[in-house]
C-alpha cells in the first residue's frame, strides 16, 4: 500500500516535471531580445534539465506537504505539543508577576535593540514599526469591522502630508521665531491622527451600503484619487517632487547625527506602537469593539440588536484612519522626504497582506505580520533581484499552510465569578454537522 502510493506519487511527479518543462520552456529556456524591430531568440538549453529536476522534486514535496496539511485539519486548541505549549504560555501570562516580567523583558530587548544591532537594523525596524501601526489600524477596519479597505494608504498619506505641509508652510515661521522646527513633529502627530480620522469618516459616508469586493474597489478608487490630488496639486503639495528636508523630531534642541536620530525615532516608534496596542486592545474589548465585530459577522442581525450601523462604520473607518495618520507622520520624520509614490495601491496591499498573513482580527497577528512582511525582504537583500520572487513564494506558502494567519486571534474567555480571565477550559468539540 505504502509502496504503491510512493510509486504513484513518483509517477505523477514525473508527469508534473514534464508539464513544467513544457510550460516554462518559452520563458525560461528561450530568451528574447529585440534589435532593429526584429525579435531574436537565444536558447539556454542548459536550463531545461534543471527545470525538470526542480519540478520533479518540488512537486513531490508539494504533494506530501498538502497531504500533511489536509490531514492536520483545523485542530482545535489544546492538542498537539505546540498548541499545548501556547496554552501553557497563555496561562503563565495570566499570572500578574509573570506578565510583568515578560513585559519588562520585552521592553529591555526593545530598548537594547539599537545598541546591539546598529543603525541599519534600527532603521529597518523603524520602517517595520511604522507598518505595525498601520497594520494594527487596518486590523480594526478589516479584522474587527470586516470592511475590506484597499485605500488605506490614503490615510497614511494624509498623515505624512500633514507633517510635510506643516513643515513647508509653518516651518519658516518657526525658524524665524527662533523655535526649533523639530517641534512641528509633536504638533503634527495628533493633528495628523485627527485629520486622517476625519478623512476616514468622510470616506465612510458614501460607502455605507457597500460590502465586500465592491467596498474594496471603491476604497481603492478613493486611495488613488487622494494620491492623484497630491501629485497634481504641485503648488500646494510639491506634486511629484514632494517635500524634502522635513525636520527630525525635536530633541532638546539638538541636531542629532543620523545614527542617534535613528535611535531616537526608533524609541518614538516603539512608544507609539505600545500606545497603539494599548488603545486597540481596549477598544477591542469594549462595547464599541464588540459592536464592530458583530457588524462583521452579520449586518442584519446586528442592526436588529439595536446597533447603529452608520455610526459603527463611521467609527471603524475613523479609528483605522487615525493610526494611519500617526504612522504617516512617523514616516515623514524618518525619511525626511515624502512624495506621492510612497502611497500607492501597493502600500495598501502590503498592509492588508500583513493583517491577513498575521491572522485577521488578531493583534499579535497584525504585529507579527507587519514585522515579517517588512523585515523579510530586508533580510532577503543579499539575494538582490531574487528577493521579490522569494517573497511572493513565501507569502503563498504561508497562506496555504496557515490560512487563518500565523497568529490567529485568541478569543477572550470569561468566567462567571465576575472577573474576566484569560484562560478557559479547552473548547469542547462542537456540533459536527457540516455547516457551510
Amino acid at each position, binding site marked *: 500500500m505504502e509502496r504503491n502510493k510512493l510509486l504513484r506519487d513518483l509517477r505523477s511527479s514525473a508527469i508534473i516535471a514534464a*508539464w*513544467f518543462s*513544457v*510550460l516554462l520552456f*518559452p*520563458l*525560461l529556456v*528561450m*530568451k*528574447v*531580445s*529585440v534589435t532593429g*524591430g*526584429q*525579435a*531574436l*531568440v537565444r536558447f539556454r538549453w542548459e536550463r531545461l534539465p534543471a527545470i525538470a529536476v526542480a519540478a520533479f522534486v518540488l512537486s513531490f514535496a*508539494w504533494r506530501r506537504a*498538502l497531504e500533511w*496539511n489536509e490531514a492536520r485539519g483545523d485542530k482545535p486548541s489544546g492538542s498537539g505539543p505546540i498548541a499545548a505549549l501556547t496554552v501553557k504560555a497563555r496561562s503563565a501570562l495570566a499570572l500578574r508577576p509573570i506578565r510583568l516580567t515578560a513585559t519588562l523583558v520585552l521592553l529591555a530587548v526593545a530598548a537594547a535593540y539599537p545598541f546591539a544591532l546598529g543603525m541599519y537594523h534600527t532603521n529597518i525596524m523603524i520602517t517595520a514599526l511604522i507598518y505595525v501601526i498601520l497594520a494594527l489600524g487596518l486590523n480594526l477596519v*478589516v479584522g474587527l469591522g470586516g470592511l*475590506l479597505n484597499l485605500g488605506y494608504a490614503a490615510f497614511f498619506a494624509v498623515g505624512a502630508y500633514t507633517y510635510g505641509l506643516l513643515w513647508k508652510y509653518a516651518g519658516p515661521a518657526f525658524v524665524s521665531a527662533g523655535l526649533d522646527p523639530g517641534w512641528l513633529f509633536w504638533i503634527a502627530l495628533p493633528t495628523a491622527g485627527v485629520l486622517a480620522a476625519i478623512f476616514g469618516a468622510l470616506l465612510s459616508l*458614501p*460607502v455605507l*451600503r*457597500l460590502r465586500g*469586493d*465592491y467596498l474594496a*474597489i*471603491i476604497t*481603492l*478608487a*478613493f486611495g*488613488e*484619487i487622494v494620491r*492623484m*490630488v497630491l501629485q*497634481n496639486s504641485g503648488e500646494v503639495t510639491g506634486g511629484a517632487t514632494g517635500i524634502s528636508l522635513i525636520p527630525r523630531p525635536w530633541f532638546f534642541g539638538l541636531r542629532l547625527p543620523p545614527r542617534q536620530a535613528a535611535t531616537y525615532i526608533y524609541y518614538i516608534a516603539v512608544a507609539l506602537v505600545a500606545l497603539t496596542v494599548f488603545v486597540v486592545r481596549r477598544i477591542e474589548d469594549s462595547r464599541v469593539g464588540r459592536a464592530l465585530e458583530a457588524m462583521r459577522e452579520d449586518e*442584519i442581525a446586528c442592526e436588529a440588536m439595536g446597533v447603529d450601523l452608520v455610526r459603527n462604520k463611521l467609527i471603524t473607518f475613523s479609528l483605522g484612519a487615525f493610526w494611519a495618520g500617526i504612522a504617516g507622520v512617523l514616516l515623514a520624520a524618518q525619511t525626511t522626504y515624502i512624495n506621492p509614490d510612497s502611497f500607492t*495601491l501597493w502600500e495598501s*496591499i502590503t498592509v*492588508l*497582506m500583513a493583517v*491577513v*498573513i498575521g491572522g*485577521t482580527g488578531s493583534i499579535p497577528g497584525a504585529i507579527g505580520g507587519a514585522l515579517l512582511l517588512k523585515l523579510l525582504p530586508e533580510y532577503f537583500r543579499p539575494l538582490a*533581484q*531574487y528577493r*521579490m*520572487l522569494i*517573497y*511572493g*513564494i513565501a*507569502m*503563498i506558502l504561508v*497562506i*496555504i499552510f496557515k*490560512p*487563518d494567519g500565523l497568529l490567529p486571534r485568541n478569543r477572550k474567555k470569561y468566567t462567571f465569578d465576575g472577573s474576566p480571565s484569560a484562560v478557559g477550559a479547552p473548547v469542547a468539540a462542537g456540533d459536527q454537522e457540516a455547516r*457551510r
Partner: protein
Amino acid sequence: MDFFLKLFLSGTAKGSIYALIALGYTMVYGIVQLINFAHGEVYMIGGFTALIVGGLLFSSGMAVPLVLALSIASAVVFSAAFGFTIEKLAYKPLRNKPRLSALISAIGISMILQNFVLLAQTEKYLSFPSYLPELEFLRPVREYLNSTQFIILVTTATIMVALTLTIKFTRMGKAMRATAQDKHMAQLVGVDINGVISLTFIIGSALAAVGGVLICSYMGQINYYIGFVAGIKAFVAAVLGGIGSIPGAVLGSFILGWTESLGTGYLSSDYEDAYAFVILILILILKPDGILGKNQKQKV
C-alpha cells in the same frame, strides 16, 4: 463635433482594450468569486510568449500571416496552461478557506510572475512587432480609428457574444452557471466542479493572451510590468459593469474608456484616472452591484 467624435472613438478603442482583459477577470470572478489579481500577469505572459514564438518563426522565414496565427495560438495555449497551473497550485488549496486568503495568494502569484519574467527575460522594454494587417478600407478614416483599434474592437465584440452564447446555451455554460451559484449543489447534480473551474481559468487566461497579443501590438512594446496597471483598470471596469456579468464587463470597460477619453479631451488628462474612479464611485453609490450586476440582497 469632430473633436467629440474623435474622442468618443478613441474612448471606444480604449474601452475595448480594457474589455479584452476585463472579460477574463469577470469570468473567473463570476464562477469562483475570486479577484484574480494575477490575471494581468497572464496577459503579460501571453504577450511575451507571442513575441518569443513570433520572433523564432519570423527569423526562420515564415510568412507573416502564418507567424501571426501561430504566435497567437501559442500565446493562447501557454497562457491557458499558466492559468490552469496557477489555479491548481495557488487557489485550489484555498477553496474552502476565508476569501481574503485567496486574494493574498493571488497577489503573491502576481508578484512571482512579474519577477519571474523580469529574471528569466529582461527588465527592459522590448519593441513588439506588429504582425497585424493594415486594413485598406480604414486608411481614409485612420485619424478616427486605425486598423489595430478596429481589430481589437471587433475581437472584443466577437468574444463577448461568443462567451455570452456559450454560457447561455451550451452544456458547459450551464455547468458554469450552476457552479457559480452553488458549488455544492452543482456537484450533487453531477457537475465536475474541478473541471469547470479549471476550464474557467483556461478560457479566462486564453482571453487574456489574445488581449496580450493585440494590445502589445497596438502599444508596440512589452515589459514585464504591463500587466499590473492593465489588471487594475480591467478590475475597475469589471466592477463598474457588475462583476460576474459578461456584458457588464464590456459595458463597464466602454464607460471607463469614454470617461477617460472625454475627460482628457475636455478637461485635463492630469486627472484621467480620477475621472474613472469618480464615475466608479458615483455608479456604485447609486447601484451598489454595478450597472448590470445581479442584486445580491440577502434574504432575511
